[in-house]
């Protein structure tokens, strides 16, 4: 076997760039596999990975987080993203028992709308206390698997009545003319069962994340009376169980100004990009001393890349003749800018951590299975 050689830093960096050209994209697939580059060792090593991997946070709010994962392959970043969307459990309304519904909205449509409402509640109760609900065996009682630790009961009882204090000749707003003309998510009442009163007490109670979601509209004499059962589920079963509104990533854009872009061209160049990506600065003496290309241009305006992260990777600048051969666009294959927006049951930073743990657990289970298979 050939002795292992280490490629230069510049070579390694250039390998990470996906080329974005006028009509084509180049170098799309990863090449960091053993045997791809003769004489190089690209085999898996946890220490190499660990020293090359880096996380940078950009924003971390309860329901919205953005961060970069640097030094990881797309297959893994994508696995985390997919797990976020479809494999992390949340609690959602699964069964609706309609006692009376005289509103104009049909029973099944109403039930569907209720199912999509995101709920929040005490973390410990949601994550540790609540377990999966299992469908009863065929022939068994339909509630034989329903317990306080796997089902949450809710009720919604509203009746629309006339508001005697409002004058129908003056007032035209139904919300003022009638009581309960609009049925909102906040009208849903949580009815704790058994041990639920300990776990979902006070501000830990199961309640809609957004109290002002409109569920239905009523007119005097109409009523909605129903109760609901919530279960834990995952997004692969139904999107209502998905803990994220969006979970996506994009690759870090790169803009490489190969030759100086000066004067009026610099302004035009800056206008080719989203605001804040490219700035126009004056060529300084140091620039001229550092780079031959700037010699004799001291005091002129030049285009500089300020913040490539804000770039939308539009190829506008490649359409203009004056920038021909002066700029190289690309994306970093191993720099993923994640954006996670939680629906409210989880904190968004915890969600990502959970996706990593879910992937680990999956592998752990399957490793056991592989051992079983051999036996």
């Amino acid at each position, binding site marked *: 076997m050939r002795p292992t050689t280490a490629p230069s830093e510049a070579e390694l960096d250039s390998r990470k760039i996906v080329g974005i050209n006028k009509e084509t994209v180049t170098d799309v697939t*990863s090449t*960091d596999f053993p045997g791809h580059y003769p004489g190089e060792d690209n085999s898996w090593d946890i220490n190499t990975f660990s020293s090359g991997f880096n996380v940078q946070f950009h924003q971390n709010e309860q329901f919205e987080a953005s961060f970069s994962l640097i030094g990881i392959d797309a*297959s*893994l970043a994508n696995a985390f993203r997919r797990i976020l969307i479809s494999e992390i459990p949340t609690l959602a309304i699964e069964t609706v028992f309609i006692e009376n519904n005289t509103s104009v909205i049909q029973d099944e449509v109403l039930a569907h709308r209720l199912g999509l409402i995101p709920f929040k509640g005490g973390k410990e109760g949601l994550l540790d206390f609540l377990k999966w609900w299992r469908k009863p065996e065929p022939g068994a009682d339909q509630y034989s698997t329903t317990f306080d630790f796997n089902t949450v009961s809710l009720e919604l009882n509203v009746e629309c009545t006339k508001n005697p204090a409002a004058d129908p000749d003056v007032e035209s707003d139904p919300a003022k003319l009638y009581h309960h003309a609009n049925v909102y998510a906040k009208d849903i009442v949580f009815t704790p069962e*058994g041990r639920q009163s300990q776990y979902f007490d006070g501000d830990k109670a199961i309640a809609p994340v957004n109290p002002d979601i409109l569920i239905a509209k009523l007119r005097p004499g109409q009523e909605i009376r129903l109760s609901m059962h919530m279960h834990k589920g995952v997004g692969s079963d139904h999107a209502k169980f998905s803990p994220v509104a969006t979970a996506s990533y994009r690759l870090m854009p790169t803009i490489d100004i190969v030759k100086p872009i000066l004067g009026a061209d610099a302004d035009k160049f800056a206008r080719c990009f989203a605001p804040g990506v490219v700035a126009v600065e004056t060529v300084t003496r140091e620039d001229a001393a550092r780079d031959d290309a700037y010699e004799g241009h001291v005091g002129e305006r030049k285009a500089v890349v300020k913040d490539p992260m804000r770039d939308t990777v539009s190829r506008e600048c490649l359409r203009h003749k004056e920038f021909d051969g002066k700029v190289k666009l690309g994306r970093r294959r191993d720099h993923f800018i994640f954006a996670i927006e939680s629906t409210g049951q989880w904190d968004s930073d915890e969600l990502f951590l959970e996706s990593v743990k879910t992937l680990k657990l999956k592998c752990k289970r399957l*490793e056991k*299975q592989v051992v079983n*298979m051999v036996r």
Partner: protein
Amino acid sequence: MAPRSKTRADVPEEAGDDATMQDAPPSHQPAADDAEDAEGGEAGDDEMNEAEDYEEEEEEPQRVKLLAGSTATAASFEFADEGHTLGNALRYIIMKNPDVEFCAYAIPHPSEAKMNIRIQTYEGTTAIDALQKGLQDLQELCDVVAEKFWVSRNEFMGESTPQPSHA
């Protein structure tokens, strides 16, 4: 159908087509009067037992299968209920193994929840070992990612909150 009638002859005549009361399996349900109490009570004994039975983890069915035509160094595996999420991640990490000559995954049909993975290794190791190593490496990787993610999160927030422990 002929074979059916043969077994009929073994059944004692008096039983006829219906099973006698003695043959009926003992009921798993609580006796009628108990049941009423249990339903009304907060968490009666019977209800607790039922809950415990429920919580017992079912034995997971075998989800990984070695497909026909496999040899020690070249094998195909079928994963039930797995998809691109694990398929692609596992393919990557197995391809990172220098003893592996070839690795690829496929989902043969979108309406079947099955994922196939093909591994061919050089002499000196086996495809099963490479698969197992891949799964172990992925677990290691997850630990590093989780750890670094949380450290970075704490730095950003100016906190030192420990990783949430659930799940």
